[in-house]
């Protein structure tokens, strides 16, 4: 009876999680959705606490207090620009928690009841240890890269090395099934997976971080589901597979938006591009620099303005300056919208959060497919800190490294203003003919300063 009640409570929390994610399908219902999820978690935690298996509360309470403190501190202190780092860390912690839970379950089962140890228990334990550990170390490296502490490390033969590590980890898992009393094998799996996690993410470049974070998000879910199989706990299984599915979907959206296959990202493969034009050929004498006053005159008569934000806007914290510029343009009767490429920023939806932080309403943020047809009717496009996602070469040159990548067709607009510090290439490492187009004017400035200068000039007009 007690058991049935406990399982019903877990069912209630799983239901609340599903309803919670459902709430996220619209910004209006999202806050409530998140709260439903939190209530679901509270139910699950209380249910675990009253489980008769729990006899000693000292460690639990200590852990809850320490964890809550750290979590609350992280959540209130983090800058919106640094959200990718925060999510990377949370992914990693989730993975490590699953590794520890599976290890503890193995130790408990060995001491309390050997009958618990079935092949499926061991398979799940090994899977939890492997995926959880890879998630933890992979996420730490991703965090380091986003933070600029860790550089890309590319070694020849890394793929073969990773394949060998995976085979070793799987062989150890089989050994653990044969001899479950040898707990050291579990920790050997953890050590091998640690090396695997590090060596998987070290070679992956900054531009691919949105894919990596999404994928690690998925792994953290899969690790939780595996821990659910270890404990035969449906709440863990359901939640883990929800998160696993979420991460996989985001990963595939990111890959499609960059026209990169998942295998290429995972193994750090860049298709060599011998056909890329040199920057002299593209830019030579054709780039027109303008000052803020000239740009303000151009914008004075604009009826429709589209702003394309990129990672450069995040770096210079320009979102508030951009908001002020938008307000000024709207006061003058212009229609202003934002065009957001799926991989703008360092994680899915990163630009939207930054713009929302600056009080820009979400209905002004348009997806690529929605806004692309409207560029021909747009008077002025302002590109702020974006580069590869507006490079028309993706459409025109089939041998370019970004060939086939869906881009924002800003070159179809009447005038284009690019606020950028220099002509340096983006992550793809290729020149952008948009900067040399007849209808493009460059404002060589930091994103925040550029936006402020244009606004002040526009006020003076």
């Amino acid at each position, binding site marked *: 009876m007690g058991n049935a009640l406990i399982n019903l409570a877990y069912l209630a929390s799983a239901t609340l999680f599903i309803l919670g994610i459902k709430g*996220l399908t619209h910004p209006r219902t999202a806050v409530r959705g998140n709260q439903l999820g939190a209530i679901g978690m509270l139910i699950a935690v209380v249910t675990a606490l009253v489980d008769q298996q729990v006899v000693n509360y000292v460690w639990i309470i200590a852990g809850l207090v320490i964890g809550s403190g750290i979590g609350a501190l992280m959540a209130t202190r983090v800058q919106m620009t640094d959200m990718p780092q925060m999510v990377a860390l949370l992914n990693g912690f989730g993975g490590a928690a699953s590794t520890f839970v599976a290890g503890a379950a193995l130790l408990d089962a060995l001491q309390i009841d050997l009958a618990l140890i079935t092949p499926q228990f061991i398979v799940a334990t090994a899977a939890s240890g492997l995926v959880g550990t890879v998630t933890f170390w992979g996420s730490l490296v991703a965090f380091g890269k986003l933070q600029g502490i860790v550089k890309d490390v590319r070694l020849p033969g890394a793929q073969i090395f990773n394949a060998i590590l995976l085979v070793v980890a799987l062989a150890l898992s089989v050994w653990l099934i044969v001899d479950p009393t040898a707990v050291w094998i579990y920790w050997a799996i953890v050590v091998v997976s640690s090396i695997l996690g590090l060596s998987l993410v070290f070679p992956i470049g900054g531009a691919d971080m949105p894919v990596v974070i999404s994928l690690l998000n998925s792994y953290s879910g899969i690790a939780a589901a595996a821990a659910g199989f270890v404990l035969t706990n449906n709440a863990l299984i359901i939640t883990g597979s*929800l998160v696993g599915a979420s991460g996989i979907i985001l990963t595939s959206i990111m890959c499609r938006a960059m026209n990169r296959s998942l295998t290429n990202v995972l193994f750090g493969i860049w298709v060599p591009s011998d056909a890329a034009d040199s920057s002299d050929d593209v830019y030579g004498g054709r780039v027109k620099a303008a000052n803020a006053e000239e740009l303000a005159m151009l914008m004075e008569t604009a009826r429709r303005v589209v702003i394309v934000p990129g990672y450069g806007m995040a770096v210079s914290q320009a979102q508030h300056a951009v908001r002020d510029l938008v307000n000024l343009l709207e006061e003058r009767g212009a229609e202003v919208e934002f065009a957001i490429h799926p991989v703008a920023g360092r994680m899915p939806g990163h630009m939207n959060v930054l713009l929302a932080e600056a009080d820009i309403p979400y209905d002004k943020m348009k997806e690529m497919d929605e806004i692309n047809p409207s560029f021909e009717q747009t008077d002025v496009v302002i590109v702020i800190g974006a580069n590869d996602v507006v490079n028309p070469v993706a459409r025109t040159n089939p041998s370019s490294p970004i060939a086939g990548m869906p881009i924002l067709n800003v070159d179809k607009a009447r005038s284009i203003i690019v606020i950028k510090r220099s002509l340096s290439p983006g992550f793809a490492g290729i020149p952008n003919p948009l900067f040399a187009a007849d209808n493009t004017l460059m404002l060589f400035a930091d994103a925040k300063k550029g936006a402020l200068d244009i606004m002040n000039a526009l006020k003076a007009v």
Partner: protein
Amino acid sequence: MEILVVSLTVFVLALFIGVEIITKVPPTLHTPLMSGSNAISGITLVGAILSAGSLGPQAATILGFLAVILATINVVGGFMVTNRMLGMFRRKD
């Protein structure tokens, strides 16, 4: 074996539900989706609590204790930061 089949059934059905709902989340909310799903993946906290509080060997208790800390960071940090972000989206309504 029967338990495994039941668990697998639950797992596969939940995957389908996940795909169904999550494809409907608009790109604008993809960052909160990630931090929010992070928070709920902290459900491993349940397993951590059971290990940290049970009568198992000392080593299992310590592992459980570490897992409770990590999973709680996930849960509390994830829900709080998601709430903070979503509040920004709601402000202009």
